[in-house]
């Protein structure tokens, strides 16, 4: 249908070639702009991607410089938040100085106006709060009198005295004693200023002034001089990327927001159009596409709709009769709104981003039809924009006409309004500009005389220097200094640890694979603490077994691999043949109950059925209501028991293998991998992590997942490498592959000898409750029963300890908990309907280590580190293994980190705000309350403990090898070169660290080589809630 309508348009426009050319150009432009939209798809498959992914080809700081203008979101935390960190010692002065010096190099020591060194000025502007807020806040402050009568409280006594003394001397000597002396014009003016200040005290003779009033005279002089001199200094303006839509001009002129009219209508339509099956009545004629179904809906009726929408019906009819296509309509709107060709891109960007949640979802359903049940046809985003601009036209016209009495044609509106745009922005008034100078003068003891005698160029220099160090620049310096300090701490700790010998059990009792996830850091650490002869490995949680998977008793296939990969294989889980009858009965029971529940749910929303159900059965629902909320644990237990009767039988198998010649597909023959594929995957899993020899008798591969109740963002707690799904099936599949005799014999040929007594076992680590589920236990050889029993015993102790460490972060968990109580507490959290923080996910992530576990083993990393196993000594000359590892690890971890970081910086902008008013819509995402834009990003309850910093990759390899990988992989190059993540390499044979900076590696000189030592993790974190430093865990002091 869509294609047909486009060909029509081509016919109609065949006569005009330039038009067609332009049309294609606009379409291309919109496709390009679509990269700016949030890349989040359906919330049930939460994708951790950088919200600014589309801009990664530009330097990080440059992008942040313009995000406020383009997205309206904050690039950094507020200045006050950084100043608090400064006060708490989280940002040391030396880090600030370091950043300032780098910024100013080589002019750091230049004197500004002969008063102060440039770097000192900047430091002082950072560490002291000298900038007034808005004009109104300033007026309030000046009205409060204190500001120009009393010195700042943080001035030292000596400074005060000096300032007062010099003022007094100056006034007495220069202005009082020689009344007859002729003065130059400027001097006269100055004299008048001084006189005025003194006159306020009704005293002709300054000598008679009481001591205490000199403070006020001094301040008042400073204030008057600053104000009078600053008037002639032009205001410093940074180059602005700001562009104003007609809506912004109108908002400024008429105080009426056209977006407030457009967004509810457009949002509701998007929700209806994208609905995946929630509404009982689907949008009529949805199959016509976004644009045409909109026209069709708005062509009839509507005589009573909002007044601004009423004329739309006529226009819609006209568009339908003329056969105008979406892109033509869009161009008509551009013309009608008077958008100049040079403004087109900026205008379309702003229009697209104005309601970016919905626009992004339209784009996602258009470009990733494999991830949704009801996809959108190609070109839907263009159609969305056409509808948006059509609505804009009417809303703007309505406001212009009603609030401004504007009756000309709309395309002249911009010209009409531009002169009327008011310019009273922050920092325009003289007082507002002079205020920082007044503060600086006090802080640095600049006397009124010094300021008065500064030449005009010096004033320009001073003011320019102060004003160019804008709020953005100050926050940038703060942020970078904070990040720098943390980076130093991390690199120092790693360097100190790397000096110690590699820690690795000689004969491992048990080997455990976990996901790279930062949550597994503490899990692995506790595991190694509890059982020193256990060896652990980290790998991306889909274990390089990408697949579409359907579990027993599940209706649909789920993609279990990172969002960027499209799986090529399908795997299903079957109940074993001996239990097939029981399975059938249970499936029937489930189907019956499911249908009944569904009927009941829809019934209660109906009229007559609803009346019967609610009146008759309603009171019975007090029981689950009270139970769920007042006794969550008991209710959850009852639910589990009840479900147990109907769950799929416990013994299942993965259908993993298909014949070599059958094509892969979701049908019966296509299920599974070929033997060749399995061998390749098995080899890769072992080679990537460096486990190619010294196998233990038991190797457990743990995927991870989470569970919680009443949480639309549940998927964000699952494995990020499995597109927000639990990674159990991948772990299980890998274990099965590596247990396969044929695979093992082929691996032997390729140089990996897995001993016969080694058995692989798949499992799932629940990161919320800390429980572990094991799969295919019945296939375990009897000889290994003792091994698994002792492993289970270890894991149960690890669960308690890990839960205990996690609990220190939960305000509602007591710091005095025993490990067992802590475990109970985290279990309760995941079963509580009212719990908005079942766990903290990857919050606080700050570092990603790629290298041998032995290099960092025993180090307390505070759950802040992604850990990927890699052994450089087993890699080939071209570093092929590292290259393929990093190709996935760097973008994935950077995406996770940037999403957390930006969501924590401006939660209501980049994140989805607080969870509390969230409202699930279209089965795709959440809105705030009754109606809003679709909210993407992480909710506040998921990031409130996260400290925003860019991820630091520390990779155990050589600088040359890393440089080669950067050169060869464009994605890695984009991220590292543009500073979207920090990068350092750790030498495989020493503790030398080189940092990547401006395209090359330079040696990192540790600031300290001390690493605190603690007997156990518990001793290090006990009683602490906040982020902790790094430490080394030794059972007894070495």
């Amino acid at each position: 249908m869509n294609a047909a309508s486009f060909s029509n348009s081509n016919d109609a426009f065949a006569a005009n070639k330039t038009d067609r050319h332009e049309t294609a150009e606009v379409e291309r432009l919109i496709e390009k702009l679509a990269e700016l939209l949030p890349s989040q798809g359906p919330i049930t498959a939460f994708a951790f991607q950088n919200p600014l992914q589309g801009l990664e080809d530009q330097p990080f700081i440059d992008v942040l410089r313009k995000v406020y203008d383009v997205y309206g979101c904050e690039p950094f935390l507020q200045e006050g938040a950084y100043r608090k960190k400064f006060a708490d010692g989280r940002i040391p002065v030396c880090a600030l100085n370091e950043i300032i010096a780098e910024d100013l190099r080589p002019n750091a020591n230049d004197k500004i106006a002969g008063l102060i060194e440039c770097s000192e000025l900047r430091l002082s502007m950072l560490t002291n709060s000298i900038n007034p807020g808005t004009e109104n806040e300033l007026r309030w402050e000046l009205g409060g009198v204190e500001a120009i009568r009393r010195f700042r409280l943080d001035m030292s006594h000596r400074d005060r005295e000096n300032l007062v003394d010099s003022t007094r001397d100056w006034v007495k000597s220069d202005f009082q004693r020689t009344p007859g002396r002729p003065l130059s014009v400027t001097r006269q003016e100055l004299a008048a200023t001084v006189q005025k200040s003194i006159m306020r005290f009704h005293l002709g003779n300054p000598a008679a002034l009481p001591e205490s009033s000199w403070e006020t005279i001094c301040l008042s002089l400073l204030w008057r001089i600053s104000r009078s001199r600053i008037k002639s200094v032009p205001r410093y303006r940074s180059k602005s990327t700001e562009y104003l839509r007609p809506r912004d001009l109108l908002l400024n002129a008429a105080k009426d927001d056209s977006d407030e009219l457009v967004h509810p209508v457009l949002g509701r339509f998007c929700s209806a159009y994208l609905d995946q099956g929630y509404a009982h009545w689907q949008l009529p004629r949805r199959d016509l596409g976004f644009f045409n179904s909109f026209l069709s809906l708005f062509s009839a009726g509507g005589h009573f709709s909002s007044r601004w929408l009423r004329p739309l019906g006529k226009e819609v009819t006209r568009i339908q009769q003329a056969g105008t296509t979406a892109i033509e309509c869009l161009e008509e709107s551009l013309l009608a709104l008077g958008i100049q060709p040079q403004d087109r891109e900026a205008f379309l960007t702003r229009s697209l981003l104005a309601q970016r949640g919905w626009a992004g979802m339209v784009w996602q359903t258009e470009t990733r039809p494999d991830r949704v049940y009801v996809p959108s046809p190609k070109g839907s985003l263009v159609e969305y924009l056409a509808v948006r601009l059509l609505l804009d036209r009417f809303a703007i016209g309505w406001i212009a006409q009603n609030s401004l009495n504007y009756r000309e044609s709309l395309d002249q509106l911009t010209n009409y309004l531009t002169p009327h745009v008011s310019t009273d922005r922050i920092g325009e008034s003289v007082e507002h500009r002079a205020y920082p100078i007044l503060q600086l003068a006090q802080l640095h003891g600049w006397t009124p005389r010094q300021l008065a005698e500064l030449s005009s160029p010096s004033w320009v220099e001073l003011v320019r220097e102060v004003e160019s160090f804008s709020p953005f620049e100050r926050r940038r310096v703060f942020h970078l200094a904070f990040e720098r300090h943390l980076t130093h701490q991390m690199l120092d700790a790693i360097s100190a640890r790397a000096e110690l010998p590699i820690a690795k059990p000689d004969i491992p009792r048990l080997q455990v694979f976990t996901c790279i996830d930062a949550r597994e850091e503490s899990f692995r650490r506790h595991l190694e603490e509890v059982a020193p002869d256990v060896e652990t490995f980290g790998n991306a949680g889909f274990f390089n077994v990408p697949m579409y998977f359907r579990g027993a008793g599940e209706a649909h296939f789920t993609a279990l691999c990172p969002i960027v990969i499209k799986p090529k294989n399908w795997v299903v889980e079957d109940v074993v043949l001996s239990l097939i009858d029981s399975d059938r009965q249970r499936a029937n029971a489930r189907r019956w109950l499911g249908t009944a529940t569904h009927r009941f749910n829809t019934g209660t929303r109906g009229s007559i059925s609803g009346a019967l159900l609610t009146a008759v059965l309603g009171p019975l629902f007090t029981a689950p209501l009270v139970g769920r909320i007042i006794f969550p644990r008991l209710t959850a237990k009852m639910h589990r028991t009840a479900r147990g009767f109907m769950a799929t039988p416990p013994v299942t198998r993965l259908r993993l293998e298909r014949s070599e010649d059958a094509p892969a597909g979701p049908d019966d023959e296509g299920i599974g991998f070929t033997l060749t594929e399995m061998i390749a995957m098995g080899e890769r899993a072992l080679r990537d992590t460096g486990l190619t020899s010294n196998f233990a008798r038991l190797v457990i591969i743990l995927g991870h997942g989470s569970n919680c109740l009443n949480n639309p963002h549940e998927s964000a707690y699952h494995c990020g490498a499995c597109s927000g799904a639990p990674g159990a099936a991948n772990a299980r599949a890998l274990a099965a592959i590596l247990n396969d005799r044929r695979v093992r014999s082929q691996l032997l040929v390729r140089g990996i000898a897995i001993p016969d007594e080694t058995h692989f076992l798949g499992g799932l680590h629940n990161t919320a409750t800390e429980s572990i589920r094991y799969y295919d236990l019945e296939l375990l050889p009897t000889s290994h029963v003792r091994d698994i029993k002792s492993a289970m015993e270890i894991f149960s102790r690890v669960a308690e300890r890990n839960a205990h460490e996690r609990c220190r972060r939960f305000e509602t968990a007591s710091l005095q908990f025993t490990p067992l109580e802590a475990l109970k507490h985290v279990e309760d959290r995941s079963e509580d309907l009212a719990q908005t923080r079942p766990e903290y996910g990857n919050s606080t992530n700050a570092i990603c280590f790629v290298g041998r576990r032995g290099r960092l083993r025993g180090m307390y990393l505070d759950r802040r580190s992604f850990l990927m196993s890699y052994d450089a000594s087993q890699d080939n000359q071209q570093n092929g293994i590292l290259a393929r590892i990093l190709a996935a690890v760097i973008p994935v971890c950077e995406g996770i980190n940037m999403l957390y970081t930006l969501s924590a910086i401006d939660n209501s902008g980049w994140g989805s705000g607080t969870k509390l008013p969230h409202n699930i819509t279209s089965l795709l995402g959440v809105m705030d309350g009754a109606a809003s834009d679709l909210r993407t990003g992480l909710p506040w309850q998921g990031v409130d403990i996260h400290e925003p910093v860019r991820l630091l990759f520390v990779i155990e390899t050589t600088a040359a090898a890393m440089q080669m990988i950067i050169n060869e992989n464009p994605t890695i190059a984009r991220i590292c070169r543009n500073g979207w993540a920090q990068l350092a390499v750790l030498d495989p044979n020493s503790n030398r660290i080189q940092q990547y900076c401006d395209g090359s590696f330079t040696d990192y000189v540790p600031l300290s080589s001390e690493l605190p030592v603690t007997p156990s993790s518990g001793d290090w974190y006990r009683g602490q809630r906040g982020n902790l430093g790094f430490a080394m865990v030794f059972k007894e002091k070495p």
Partner: protein
Amino acid sequence: MVPNLLLTLTGIIVVVSPAALLMMLGLTTLFRYKLSEVAISRFAQTCSFTGLLASLCILAFMLATGVRDVPLEFGNWVSLHNLTGTSEIADETTSSHDSTQHATDSVAPHAGEFHLRMKFVFDRLSIPFAVMTFVLCGVIGSFAVKYLHLEPGYNRFFLFYSIFQLGMVWSSIAGTIETLFFSWELVGLSSALLVAYYHDRASPVQNGLRVWAVYRIADAAFLVAALSLHHLSGSGDFAVLMGDGDWPFGKVSITEQQALLVGSLLLIAAAGKSALVPFSGWLPRAMEGPTPSSAVFYGALSVHLGAFLLLRVSPVLEASKTLSGIVVALGLVTMIYATMATRVQSDVKSALSYASLIQVSIIVVEIGIGLRYIPLIHIIGHACIRTLQLVRAPSLLKDYSSLENAIGDHLPPSPSIWQRWLTPSTRERFYRFAWERGYMDSMLDDFVVQPFVHLFRMANRIELRCEKFLEGPTNRNNPVPKDRRRN
């Protein structure tokens, strides 16, 4: 004697426990004393639980002894004698002092007098309603204690919550129309504030204002109705008003015309509170607050308050057949409207709020056709089930996936008879009507809001003109302040 005293005491506990919570939270807020989350939650839970226990005791007593009506007097707080024209205000201020002397006397009705009489009554209508309110408020309080953890407005939420609970409980057990009106106002106030809970965003505040505005219309009607009742029967006491029978067997002593007048006003009040046509627009908009507040407060409790009012004054309905007819018609219209509207909603909270509206309108129909116990049971059942559904609304995605897994396919679209019978173009018209939520909001804007705005603007213009005239020609250069010129 002892049982009676005990009963009175228990009754006082029911009345006082929600008030105690409000005092506690209100005073600490007033004096800027910051209570910890734990302290707030303990207070809230204790008060709800005490209130619940006390009302259950009364219920048990009533069941055991067969007493069906337990009044609880708090005397006249204001009483105006000989209402004549202009002396009203003066009277009010002077006579408010002698409130204590009326403490226990049974007030003889005199037409033309006005009393603000605090009286509560426990009967077959109020006790079930109070028990339900305590259960639901208590449960939601416990839910919110954890759900709002670390939220900056934690204290504010519980303050509004306590006002709401107080209003709901006192409304249920109000024995006079003044008490009911007072509590009704508390519910309205706290509802509007809770809708606007997230005052850092524009739309919650706008929607809160909208809810508030609709409530004002309803309350104005209620106030007029209350005053008319006073004029007609000399008292706002339900016991006097409804004659000697206990609820629901009362008989009113007013004529059919009077019943129609008063009843219509009360119906407007009920329609505003219960979001009946034409006031339905506010209900989905009220879903702005945190999930627990939107859940219980609008979806389940306060939306029933209109129906409760109709039940409370049911003898008035019985006195006029026309009035009953209007009630039934209004209920039916709302039901049809809400049924259509709920079917097109693609977000869970709007869909549930319209689903609530369907049931409320059916309850209104039931009241209109003269049923009494069935609507009461219906209210309680519906409130429980809807609270659970709204509280579990964030689980929707998980529920869908587990249902789909059980059924083994995507959930079947529910077959709807009239969707199958209607032609596509008619269906489209219906869809548009439902999608635009019956144009209810824009019609209110056009026919109610706009005239008011025009009127006020005109008044503003006249005032400015007068001002100019009075200022005389000398001050012409002094511009009128900018903000006053707008509007």
